[in-house]
C-alpha cells in the first residue's frame, strides 16, 4: 500500500537484481532508476555486489597516489602547454615519434631520442617502481630478447626509476628510466635489430646525448642530457656490467 502505483517495492527491486523480474517490472524499475535517485540508492543497498565493488576499488587498496607536487606549482601551467599533449601520447604508445617513424630501415635510436626528448624531471619524479614489478618486466625482457638487464638497475650516477616493456613495430623494446643527481632524465633502451655488431658510438640526437651499440642482434642505447662524455662514461659502465 504505497498509494502510488508507480512506486517500486523492495520485492520488485530484488526481482530486478536477481533477473527474475518480468518485462513490466523491469521497465518500471528502469524508468524509476532514470528518474529517482532514491530508487537507485535502494537498489544498491540490496545489491550484494556493490560493497564488493567498493572494496575492490577502494583507493587505499589500489594504492592510489597523491597528486604530484609539481602540479601544485604555477610552473605546471607552463609545462603543460608545451609538453603534455605529446608527452601523454608518447607515454602510452611510444608515440608517433617512435612507432610510426620506425620503419625497418630507419634509425631506431633516432626515434627513441625523439621520444626521450619529451621527458622532463617530473616525468620520473615519482617513487621508484616496486622491485617485484621491475623483476617481472626484466623477466619478460629476458624471455623476449634473451638479455639479462638486472645489472642495469644499479648504475653508479643514475637513480633507477622504472622498467617498461614497450614495442617498436611489433618488436619488444625494453625501456629502463633513470634520473641523475641533477634530476636529468635518462633512459636505457634495448630492442632486437638487424645488422652487424657495432661498437659504442656517442652522438647528439634530438639535442640529447646518446651512446648506442649493437651486440649479437640486440641494439642498445643510453640517452639523456646534453653531456656526451657523461653518457659515454655511463654506457661504458653498462657494457661492462651487462
Amino acid at each position, binding site marked *: 500500500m504505497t498509494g502510488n502505483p508507480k512506486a517500486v517495492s523492495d520485492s520488485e527491486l530484488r526481482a530486478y*537484481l536477481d533477473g527474475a523480474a518480468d518485462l513490466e517490472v523491469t521497465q518500471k524499475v528502469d524508468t524509476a532508476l532514470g528518474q529517482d535517485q532514491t530508487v537507485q540508492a535502494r537498489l544498491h543497498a540490496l545489491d550484494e555486489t556493490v560493497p564488493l565493488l567498493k572494496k575492490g*576499488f577502494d*583507493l587505499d587498496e589500489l594504492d592510489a*597516489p597523491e597528486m604530484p607536487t609539481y602540479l601544485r606549482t604555477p610552473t605546471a601551467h607552463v609545462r603543460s602547454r608545451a609538453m603534455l599533449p605529446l608527452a601523454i601520447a608518447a607515454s602510452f604508445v611510444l608515440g608517433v615519434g617512435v612507432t610510426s617513424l620506425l620503419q625497418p630501415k630507419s634509425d631506431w635510436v633516432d626515434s627513441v631520442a625523439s621520444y626521450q626528448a619529451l621527458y622532463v624531471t617530473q616525468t620520473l619524479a615519482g617513487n621508484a617502481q616496486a622491485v617485484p614489478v621491475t623483476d617481472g618486466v626484466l623477466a619478460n625482457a629476458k624471455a623476449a630478447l634473451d638479455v639479462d638487464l638486472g645489472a642495469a638497475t644499479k648504475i653508479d650516477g643514475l637513480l633507477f626509476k622504472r622498467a617498461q616493456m614497450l614495442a617498436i613495430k611489433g618488436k619488444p623494446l625494453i625501456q629502463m628510466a633513470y634520473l641523475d643527481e641533477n634530476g636529468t632524465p635518462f633512459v636505457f633502451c634495448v630492442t632486437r635489430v638487424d645488422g652487424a655488431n657495432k661498437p659504442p658510438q656517442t652522438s647528439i640526437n634530438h639535442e640529447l646525448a646518446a651512446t648506442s651499440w649493437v651486440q649479437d642482434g640486440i641494439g642498445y642505447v643510453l640517452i639523456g642530457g646534453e653531456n656526451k662524455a657523461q653518457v659515454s662514461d655511463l654506457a661504458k659502465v653498462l657494457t661492462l656490467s651487462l
Partner: protein
Amino acid sequence: MRWISKKSQHSAVEDGLPQIYRRLWRFCMVLTKDRTAADDLAQAACERALVNAAKFSPGTDLDRWVFTIARRLWLNEIRSRKVRRGEGLVAVEDVDIADEKPAIEVNILAREVLDIVQALPEAQRLSVLLVYVEGYTYSEAATLLDVPIGTIMSRLSTVRKLISTYVDDPRNLK
C-alpha cells in the same frame, strides 16, 4: 570583475585538483588498465584542467569536468592513434594491477571482483566505476559517457549478473 571571476575559476581548479586526484587516478586506471599509464593520463588531465581553468564553472562538480577531460584525452589523443603501448604486448603491470600490494592485505573476494571488472570491456568498466563506486546517478554516468541512460542500465545489468554468478559460486568463472 572579470579578473576576479577568472581568479576564482583558477582557484577552484587549483584547490580542487589535489582533493580529487586519487579518484581521478582511479578513473584513469580503469580506462588504461595500467598503473604507469594512469599516472601519465591523470597528470595530463590535471595539466589540461589547469590550462583551461577559465572554462570551469565554480560551483559545479570539478570531478566530472576533469574525468571528462581525462576521457577525451584518452579517446582523442591516445587511442585514436591506434598505436597503443606495446602494440599488443602486455606490460607486466597490465597483467595484475595490484601486484604491488601484498595479497594478504586485500579482501580476496573483492580483489577477484576487481579482476573480473578489469577484464570487462572499457565501457562496462567505466559504467561500474562511475555508478557503483563513485556513486553517480545513472543519468550522470550517461551524460559523462555520452550514451543513453538505458545503455548504462544494460551494461550494469550484465556486470551484475556476471559478478553474482561468481559470488554464488566462484568455480563458475574458472
